[in-house]
């Protein structure tokens, strides 16, 4: 069963990776992705705030993880996503996948990220010295989804 965590509190990505890897029995390959708050536009980012839709968030993440499990015969999957306010350098979220071979683990982690970006109910607001602004959805993120569309 994939593990889904939605929380406001900071988390330790290394500790989560170790815990995920330790519970695997047959997986030879473990892939992780971590997203970190960065001043992408170099616009003086001071903080980021993430709003989400409690209830639907957990449902959407479970659905995405379940889909990944069957598509790549994964051994296991893990998604953790934070909400609320966080500062530069803080870890926003993390996914991890475990499979027999590296190809499936990599593909499934990318799939989880692509779906999560555009299909899970999270919205980012960036705070800079000039004020606050909602992050706009990127065209590329929507396009990234299309490569998984065969058969689903």
């Amino acid at each position, binding site marked *: 069963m994939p593990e889904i965590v939605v929380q406001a509190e900071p988390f330790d990505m290394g500790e989560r990776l170790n815990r995920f890897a330790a519970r695997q029995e047959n997986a030879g390959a473990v892939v992780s992705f971590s*997203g970190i708050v960065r001043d992408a536009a170099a616009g003086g980012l001071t903080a980021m705030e*993430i*709003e*989400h*839709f409690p*209830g*639907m968030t957990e*449902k959407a993440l479970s659905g995405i993880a379940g889909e990944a499990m069957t598509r790549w015969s994964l051994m296991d999957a893990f998604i953790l*996503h934070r909400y609320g306010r966080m500062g530069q350098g803080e870890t*926003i*979220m993390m996914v991890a996948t475990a499979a027999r071979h590296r190809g499936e683990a990599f593909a499934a982690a990318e799939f989880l*990220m692509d779906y*999560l*970006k*555009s*299909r*899970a*109910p*999270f*919205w*980012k*607001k960036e705070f800079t010295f000039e004020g606050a602004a*909602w*992050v*706009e*959805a990127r065209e590329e*993120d*929507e396009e990234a989804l299309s490569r998984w569309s065969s058969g689903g």
Partner: protein
Amino acid sequence: MIELRYFAWVRERVGTGHETVHTDAETVGALIEELKGRDEGYAFAFSDPGAIRAAVDQELAGPDTPIAGAKEVAFFPPMTGG
């Protein structure tokens, strides 16, 4: 009666995150048209239908999704998680 929920800038523009309304609309799209007529805030929030995403009972929905029997409809901008 149906529960409406708003998130991110949709919430900011309509001025509330949550309300209960009576509606005769049969689809998500018809409900949006109805809401647009309420006041300036709603009109602004829903001015670009392409920028609005919706969920009916926490499942992503399109303009043609029926809302008969639904408990809750949510409106929000394109998602930006990850």
